[in-house]
């Protein structure tokens, strides 16, 4: 009975891994990069590389000044405008608005004069890499989020089944034999990273799904609230907080936002608001929304206060109830929007470990099946190998191409901001498709070729940054632009790792393909 259970779990682990490994690697890769999405933003948007020496993030900003600064950019009849205040990792303000059918790209403002920066013409880390991580940029009917959700459940199954089938889990707890065959050493590394990183892998996957619980269990409210849109809205308002009031369709004024911020700060024990949103600007029924910053806590609180725009009177307050606070804590464990550099770096390392876990899983499966498939004349390994190479080294190449395009394309005022951003995205997908084509054409040798490509592309990106912006690592460090220096240095580390891998792959005898060639001869 025990043996059949293990066998079922082994079958499940293998097939869930082979079928969903590509999606999982993409999610983990983009997720790991998203840990430093704001830093990637600095790299991709040179105008936002504001040195902390010039404009410390702690310098207080007057919300009234902000309101005056954005006023000309808000069209008449807009339903809302919003400004996100600078943080330790994002030195610029972010302005967005919504008007009839329009949802334009966000604009950045520098923190000293509150002047608008020219459109950067890029989605950056926070606009491309991060949304790719949770939704694969497949927005129609939330398809992307559902695929990620299926992959996430599969990941949990993979972790559970992996532990069950790992016979020598305690004995081999610390075992890694890199000098043995590729099959043995990739399995060792797979098991090592999987077992030792188990708490992280499990928590990060489960917490990711909890964030989107309303998408993955869309009818959950219907037992307690009844059916229909109104019931759903009621649940949302009870859980996350919601306030609105309709326009008066008469002109109105905006009172002192700073006074409202003072009220909020006092109620929140000194914690600052992290954004300000004005609903129905210019209308008599306009109201102002402030939300409490979660930079110093794990929980992504939803504390919110709404004020009447003209008088500054408090209209509505909200705080999450205990269970929802737990959901917000769990969300915070995943989102890591807090200021804690040690944890940020540890999450980055753990995310990379997750990528290694998935990649070594593919490698092991390929090596283990190679000889068997070749002997039986099956094409399975060839197909999966192409898929694996494109999904692993391929997506890395695509990401580097994305960064390189960011530096190579002319600045946004040379072409429209949104067109330029779209071209960067096209570069990503075209490069990615090319890596799949290359992988299916070259077979096992593709690993090495793509590893070398990663090495060269990563170095090219560092060079391009230095040439196009002048912020080479030494200068960036001197200016206090740690984000830019950090991205460049990690790119160089990636180049070194890729070169080492390529040489290691060259050293491994190509047993499999030699036997395949022999079988065909």
């Amino acid at each position, binding site marked *: 009975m025990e043996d059949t259970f293990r066998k079922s779990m082994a079958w499940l682990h293998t097939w869930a891994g082979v079928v969903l490994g590509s999606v999982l690697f993409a999610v983990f890769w983009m997720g790991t990069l998203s840990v430093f999405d704001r830093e990637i933003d600095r790299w991709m948007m040179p105008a936002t590389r504001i040195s902390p020496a010039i404009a410390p993030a702690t310098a207080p900003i007057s919300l009234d000044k902000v309101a005056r600064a954005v006023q000309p950019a808000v069209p008449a009849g807009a339903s809302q405008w919003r400004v996100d205040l600078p943080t330790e990792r994002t030195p610029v303000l972010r302005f967005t608005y919504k008007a009839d059918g329009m949802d334009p790209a966000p604009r950045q403002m520098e923190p000293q004069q509150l002047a608008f920066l020219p459109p950067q013409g890029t989605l950056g880390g926070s606009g491309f890499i991060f949304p790719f991580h949770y939704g694969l940029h497949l927005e129609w009917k939330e398809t992307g989020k559902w695929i990620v959700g299926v992959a996430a459940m599969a990941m949990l199954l993979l972790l559970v089944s992996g532990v069950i089938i790992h016979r020598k889990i305690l*004995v081999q*707890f*610390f*075992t*890694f*034999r*890199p*000098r043995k065959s590729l099959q043995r050493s990739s399995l060792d590394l797979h098991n*090592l*990273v999987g077992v*030792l*990183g*188990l*708490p*992280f892998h499990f*928590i990060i996957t489960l917490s990711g799904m909890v964030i989107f619980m309303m998408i993955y269990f869309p009818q959950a409210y219907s037992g307690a609230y009844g059916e229909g849109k109104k019931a759903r809205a009621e649940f949302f308002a009870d859980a996350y907080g919601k306030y609105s009031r309709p326009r008066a369709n008469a002109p109105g004024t905006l009172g002192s936002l700073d006074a409202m911020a003072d009220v909020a700060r006092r109620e929140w024990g000194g914690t600052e608001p992290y954004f300000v949103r004005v609903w129905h600007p210019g209308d008599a029924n306009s109201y102002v929304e402030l939300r409490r910053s979660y930079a110093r*806590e*794990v*929980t992504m609180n939803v504390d919110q206060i709404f004020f009447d725009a003209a008088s500054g009177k408090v209209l509505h307050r909200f705080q999450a109830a205990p269970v929802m606070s737990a959901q917000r*804590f769990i969300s915070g*464990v995943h989102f890591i929007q*807090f200021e*804690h550099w*040690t*944890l940020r770096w*540890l*999450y980055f*390392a*753990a995310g990379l*470990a997750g990528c290694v876990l998935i990649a070594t899983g593919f490698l092991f499966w390929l090596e283990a099946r190679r000889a068997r498939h070749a002997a039986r004349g099956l094409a399975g390994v060839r197909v999966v190998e192409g898929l694996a190479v494109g999904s692993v080294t391929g997506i890395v190449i695509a990401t580097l191409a994305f960064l390189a395009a960011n530096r190579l394309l002319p600045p946004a005022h040379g072409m429209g901001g949104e067109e330029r951003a779209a071209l960067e995205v096209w570069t990503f997908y075209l490069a990615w498709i090319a890596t799949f084509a290359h992988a299916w054409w070259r077979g096992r040798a593709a690993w090495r070729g793509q590893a070398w490509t990663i090495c060269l592309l990563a170095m090219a990106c560092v060079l391009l940054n230095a040439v196009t912006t002048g912020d080479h690592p030494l200068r960036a460090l001197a200016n206090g632009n740690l984000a830019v220096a950090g991205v460049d240095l990690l790119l160089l580390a990636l180049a070194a790792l890729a070169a080492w891998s390529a040489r290691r792959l060259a050293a491994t005898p190509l047993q499999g393909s030699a036997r395949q060639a022999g079988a065909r001869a």
Partner: protein
Amino acid sequence: MTALLLVAACLASYGGFACLALAMPEHWEQWGGGSQRAAAWRWLRPAGLGLLALAYGLCVWRDGPGFGSLLWTVLISAAALAVAFTLTWRATR
């Protein structure tokens, strides 16, 4: 102070897993401890667990219960991997 507590937590985590590893016959032999069941094995495991517990205390002291628990959870994985790589490096020398 926070830097000191972090270093201490890292060392305690690393030491904890090192003890747990050495409490395993295969790794004990690797370290040249001899193949006989040594007296050290009786206290290595509790010492290892104790050091990991100490690391937790240090993390919570440094960053509070929320951040501290999170820090410890990710830190010990990193420490365990570091111990594994140390053993591998020694074995391939």
